[in-house]
């Protein structure tokens, strides 16, 4: 990582910080609106954008020198989606009278 420290990353860090604070404000504001079935989707969408910003820029996944790091991140997400996706597709397609 120190290989490309010639240009200061401070501007990027502060820009990400502002974006994360704005996202927090936006998610609180969106929760007060009646978006019918889309409230949860909007809240999770904003949370995912914020989490992606933290991972890519604060945790340096974007500039990670190791491809293995990216592989571990993708594997973790894959198995999380497998857990949530398969479980919820089961529960969502059961008949509850």
């Amino acid at each position, binding site marked *: 990582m120190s290989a490309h*420290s010639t240009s200061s990353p401070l501007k990027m860090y502060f820009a990400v910080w502002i974006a994360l604070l704005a996202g927090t404000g936006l998610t609180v504001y969106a929760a007060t609106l009646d978006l019918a079935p889309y409230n949860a989707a909007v809240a999770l969408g904003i949370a995912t954008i914020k989490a992606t910003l933290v991972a890519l820029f604060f945790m340096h996944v974007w500039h990670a020198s190791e491809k293995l790091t990216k592989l571990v991140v993708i594997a973790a997400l894959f198995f999380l989606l497998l857990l949530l996706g398969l479980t919820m597709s089961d529960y969502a397609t059961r008949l509850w009278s």
Partner: protein
Amino acid sequence: MPDSTLVGLHHEEEHHPELLHHFADAEQQRDASSLGMWVFLATEVMFFGGLFCAYLIYRRWYFGDFAAASKTINMGLGATNTAVLICSSLTVVLAVWAAQTARRTLLIVSLVVTMLLGLAFLGIKGIEYTDKFEEHHVPGASFSFNNVPIPGRPGEYANPRHAQIFFSLYFVMTGLHALHMIIGLGVFTWLLYTAWKGRFTPEWHTPVEIGGLYWHFVDIVWIYLFPLLYLIDRHP
């Protein structure tokens, strides 16, 4: 051959004192440490993932009860805590940058501010928990959640048993998150001590980097916990 022994000794002395002998160079050692932390974080994703999965199942079943219970949590305190954690993530990247660029004072200040923000988070969490204890919203024998209307369904009241499931998930998920914060504060105490001794250099500051990775991960967990627990069906 005495010559080769001398060369060997000289070679050893050139190494950075923190470079362990089974690594070829500092870069390889750093990558190995970082990868180890990422694998640990992958197991943490599955650890919290099970709880998120339980949350999603019950939220689908008892949506109205979950919305009613969620409305009793203080949204302002939750939003403030989100901002506090985001600011602490900024001070963590500043600490890593300070270690990379040999700025010892900035490193120490960043670590101290990060820890103060972490303590502020736990303090606000404590206020929130106190409210829940006083309102008898803590699952157990004294739990009480009677005549709480379900948002958007006039005349309907939340089932206390279902609301209790929400509060069980709320306390387990935020409690486990708070435990991670306390462990993070322990890690940062050691980082601060080591930084104070001046042992971190641009060549070797891996603990600051991987301690930072852990802190950011705990921040990401909170980024999801906040809307899921505090912001269910908040609109009037």
